[in-house]
């Protein structure tokens, strides 16, 4: 079976230590988590983990089973990229001098509709939300000029289909 990129969404209680439990499920099976984002969800006191992994569908189904087995996990889902709306955010920091020495930098910023977060005498920071390949392309374009700092967030994703967490919580509580 072919390996693919899957986006896993885990709805859980907001409890200390759960991140550790979730990550060990992957580590135990020697699976690299390519991206991880944890935030509040649309429901109060319910957290949402978004993980990106590269694995076979068979393996990802088993992982979902192991995730859902955790007492504090309400539900877990996996999606292929065409089943979700997703994005990442990247930030780049440069020395301010570069802006004047290399006008191409300004062109790249314009071309990719990047936001300028801050500019001062010594450095400036630009950001971009987008798909991984767009950010990779920007990174490659900036690379020759010398990037002072680069960071990219984990993926955030929203599923096209409903996930019915409220309904599941309601059923469990009954």
């Amino acid at each position, binding site marked *: 079976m072919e390996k693919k990129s899957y986006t896993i969404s885990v709805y*859980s*209680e907001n*409890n*200390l*230590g759960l991140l*550790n*439990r979730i990550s*060990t499920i992957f580590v*135990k099976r020697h699976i690299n988590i390519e991206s991880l984002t944890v935030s509040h969800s649309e429901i109060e006191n319910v957290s949402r983990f978004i993980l990106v992994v590269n694995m076979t569908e068979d393996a990802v*189904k*088993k992982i979902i*089973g*192991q995730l*859902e*087995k955790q*007492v*504090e*996990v*309400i539900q877990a889902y996996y999606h292929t990229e065409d089943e979700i709306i997703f994005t990442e955010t990247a930030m780049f920091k440069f020395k301010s001098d570069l802006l004047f020495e290399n006008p191409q930098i300004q062109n790249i910023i314009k071309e990719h509709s990047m936001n300028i977060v801050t500019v001062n005498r010594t450095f400036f920071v630009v950001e971009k939300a987008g798909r991984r390949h767009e950010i990779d392309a920007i990174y490659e374009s900036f690379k020759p000029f010398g990037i002072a700092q680069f960071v990219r967030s984990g993926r955030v994703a929203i599923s096209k289909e409903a996930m019915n967490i409220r309904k599941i*919580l309601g059923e*469990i*509580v009954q």
Partner: protein
Amino acid sequence: MKNTERIIGAEAVVRCLIAEGVDVAYGYPGGAIMPIYDELYKYQDQLHHVLTRHEQGAAHAAQGYARTSGRVGVALATSGPGATNLITGIADAQIDSTPVVCITGQVASHLLGTDAFQETDVISISSPITKWNCQVTKAEDIPAAIAKAFYIAKSGRPGPVLIDITKDAQQGELDYNSYEKCSQVRSYKPIPETDIEKVKQAAEIINGAKKPMIIFGQGVILGSAEAELKAFIEKSGIPSAWTVLGLSALATNHPLNVGMVGMHGNYGPNKLTNECDVLIAIGMRFDDRVTGKLDVYAKQAKVIHFDIDPAEIDKNVKSDVAVLGDAKDTLGKILEYVDQKEYTSWLNEFRAFDQIEFEKVIDGQLNPTKEGLTMGEVLQGINKATKDNAVIVSDVGQHQMMAVRYANFTNTRSNVTSGGLGTMGFALPAAIGAKMGAPSRDVVAIIGDGGFQMTCQELGTILQTGTAVKIVVLNNEFLGMVRQWQQLFFDRRYASTEMINPDFIKLAEAYSIPAKKVTQRENLQAAIDEMIASESSYFLEVMVEKEDNVFPMVPTGASVSDVRLS
């Protein structure tokens, strides 16, 4: 009006345990759990604390207690080394689905993360091997945490839970009302819903089968579904095999019991797993020791899998129909839909393999003609002396496989062994707990000379508590199972498997335990009879053949149908 009292956290711990019906807890005191021990002193008439000689012993004793009683076992330890010493037992309980609640003391909350004396991050360490764990840093959170711990440990697929309580939470005060048991956790569904359509589909496949076979595991025992299993087996007429942990869920001598599957299981059920047309797995998880090489495991069969844990479905073996739910409920439901049948010629295929196994393996074990004593004849002697009614607690290794192969069972919850983790040193402390969990029964621990020395300090616990555990050490002066593998797969290079042992009799006597050593066959049965008749604990050492092997054997990576008889 609620009766509110102002008490300290440590007292709340003990009162919550008592309110949960805990009558015995195993443990070892130390700095960070002293406030709880101080309360145990006060409440000793209501909660018996057993001082083991090592925290690992406390964890295994709690497991043994849980396995025979069906209740939650409790183990207590201090922070740091106390907590880490519990870890092997917790891992064992996790893989064998044993309900255990462990309570560890922790350094005061203001010291967390400072590398304080005896500080260990036991929450992180135990996360992958607990069903649930949590750290409590405030006295007022203790009752709810303990209630949740017991609920989670015993509900659904059981497992170990650890509660880590900081010393300041033990010493702080709280308003204690009457104890409220936990009955739900909103993110947790212990028993999945059973889809009646799946039950009907399973029944339809079963009713159309020509050569069906059942393999049942510990899920039957954990779900108290022994009667439902028996009714299902008898109505459907299907030959039924047990896994190591499924032992004793059905009587050994039941006419449809075809023995044990797996690496050292019986010849027939291993061979015929690859010939049946329908394989019905009940409360078992297709462990690699059961299946051998997966890509050639029961490929010809339609697989029906009954389990309470959805994560087990299709984990190792793909099922054609999965029936989720509690075994008591699902087996009760399917009974209505299965036809009354008999499979005489198919059952005879099992019996034909039994005959071959008897001639090539069993006869030599039970009726040996060679001089050296066999492990099998010791087990047979125990069967005879206890009329197949003992609780057999086995350690890990050759003697364990001989115990599970040759011990006979009449009653459920009679087989206590470390199945999934394979923890040497398990049996002696587990037997102490097993006896306390089933005080009216004969509890016989079968231990090798290697495993015995891993936890033999628990003889001190037997001395102090007077627990009437019968200990049988089958001494072959080797780490026998490893030696067997060295013989078969490593060209007899016996690297670090030969044991020079102490005088075990003197050791037992040092703990005031009556002891006897048997070296000759003619003395064996009388010694076993004396041991079983003894009102107190008893230690029996049997010198067995040094280089005996356990067969049949499915070598690692081989198909179950390639099971070897020699």
